[in-house]
């Protein structure tokens, strides 16, 4: 599988602040790639370097085999970018916003394609309404349409589902999966750890450094599971790794005696796991 994004030894400094430090990353084509981290961890900076809005201090970056700075005009036809803020014109309608940003690429039959993308985002009935009358979630969807109107091969989405309700979030993720199935690579940043589970692969970023790169399942397995059971009326608790093997081993140790009447599992949630991974990494650094 070829890589849509290749990053080697990337660092970005803002004066004395190291926003990104020695990032090495490959994003396979056609995947939903999650960039997870707390606010200020460097997610937006990394995305802005990848779309060519920021110059790296050091390191090499390739997106679809092109340099985002040197080959910016060739690349901009092939990438979509949805910034963290909606970055739309409030005084224009949803349709005019999409047509305006699509206009930069001289797309053939722009109006028809705009209507199609509005339908895809379930915004057809609000197409002619001013964006200022839209909710935060709807603005995000218009913003997504602006990023997709020229049918890019890779889309960079910076916190696409932040501050929107669970229903719209689910709807957005359905759209992302639909896009991925059509062969588009999605590079999604989020501080919402549960969203990491919806990606094919995840990179955890902390203080501008890569903390972990893995599949969501493997990351979940790095958490702990608490087993609570009652034996002869006494409630006991043991903490095991979240792997199936660990659970079996624990149950064998317990022997599953007749006296054990109930077992409940309380797996670590993804947020705790990610936060623990970050703090373990921080603690392992030489003081």
């Amino acid at each position: 599988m070829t890589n849509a994004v290749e990053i080697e030894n990337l660092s970005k400094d803002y004066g004395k602040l190291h926003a990104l430090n020695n990032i090495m990353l490959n994003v396979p084509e056609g995947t939903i790639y999650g960039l997870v981290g707390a606010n200020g961890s460097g997610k937006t900076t990394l995305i802005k370097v990848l779309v060519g809005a920021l110059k790296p201090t050091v390191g090499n970056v390739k997106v679809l085999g092109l340099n985002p700075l040197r080959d910016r005009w060739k690349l901009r036809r092939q990438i979509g970018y949805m910034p963290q803020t909606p970055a739309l014109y409030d005084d224009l309608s949803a349709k005019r916003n999409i047509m305006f940003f699509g206009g930069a690429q001289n797309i053939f039959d722009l109006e028809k394609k705009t209507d199609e993308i509005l339908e895809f985002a379930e915004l057809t009935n609000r197409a002619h309404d001013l964006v200022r009358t839209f909710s935060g979630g709807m603005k995000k969807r218009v913003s997504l349409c602006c990023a997709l109107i020229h049918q890019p091969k890779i889309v960079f989405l910076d916190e696409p589902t932040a501050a929107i309700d669970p229903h719209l979030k689910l709807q957005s993720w359905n759209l992302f999966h639909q896009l991925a199935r059509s062969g588009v690579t999605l590079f999604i940043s989020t501080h919402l750890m549960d969203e990491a589970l919806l990606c094919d692969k995840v990179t955890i970023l902390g203080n501008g450094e890569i903390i972990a790169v893995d599949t969501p399942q493997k990351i979940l397995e790095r958490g702990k599971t608490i087993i609570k059971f009652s034996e002869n009326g006494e409630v006991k608790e043991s903490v095991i790794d979240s792997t199936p093997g660990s659970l079996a081993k624990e149950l064998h140790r317990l022997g599953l005696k007749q006296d054990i009447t109930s077992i409940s599992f309380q797996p670590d949630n993804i947020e705790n796991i990610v936060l623990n991974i970050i703090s373990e990494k921080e603690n392992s650094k030489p003081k």
Partner: protein
Amino acid sequence: MNALIITKRVLKQLQGDKRFLALSIIAPLIVIYFLKLLFDAFPPIVPITNFTMPIGALIVHFLSFLLCAILLVQERTRGTLERMLISGYRRTSIIGGYTLGYLGLATIQAAAVLFESLWLFDLKYGKETIFILFMVIWLLAVVSVMLGIFVSTFARHEGHVLPFIPLIILPSVFLTGLIIDIDALPGWAALIGKCLPLHYAVNIIHEIIKPEYSLHNTYLDFAILVGYIFLLWILASLTLKESE
């Protein structure tokens, strides 16, 4: 071609923001009226006709500069400027689109200020003089739009535009020949005045409102005003960063 798409969007936005549109046309008219009240209080010995049109030009210069700079800075703070660049719009298209878009507003401002001044101050000029006065104020408005675009490239938010007012607009009031002849100023101050576009607009206005004017005397000043437009276009294109 892409510049025209941006122009169309700017015009649509202006059309949508009726409050902004009304304020940017009514505000200079109100200021001209205040100027009339002030001049009426002056003793008759003061040649107020020498000041009326240059001050009208200053008002258009100030407002066009400020409005354009602030609106372009808003594009930056809202993230739409960055999005335009990443979507594939080029710097020259953005600057060209903006200039053409705000030119319409600048034209209306120039015409409103000119005709209100003529009416309020009962100025009796020939058709040719009025046309040339309009052209000067309009050209100055275009320079102001370009200056606003150029200045906006140094501002991260709207507040950053404000220091440019004492830096560019206030020296224009004192050093460009608007109030006193530039030759009466110390050499270095006159030099600063000659670097400011309002000086050339004031020169043309002073020449053209003479009963026996010579168009020939205004050619160089007109050429310099046009030169400012191209110079600021180039400077703005160079300073508008595509990546930081």
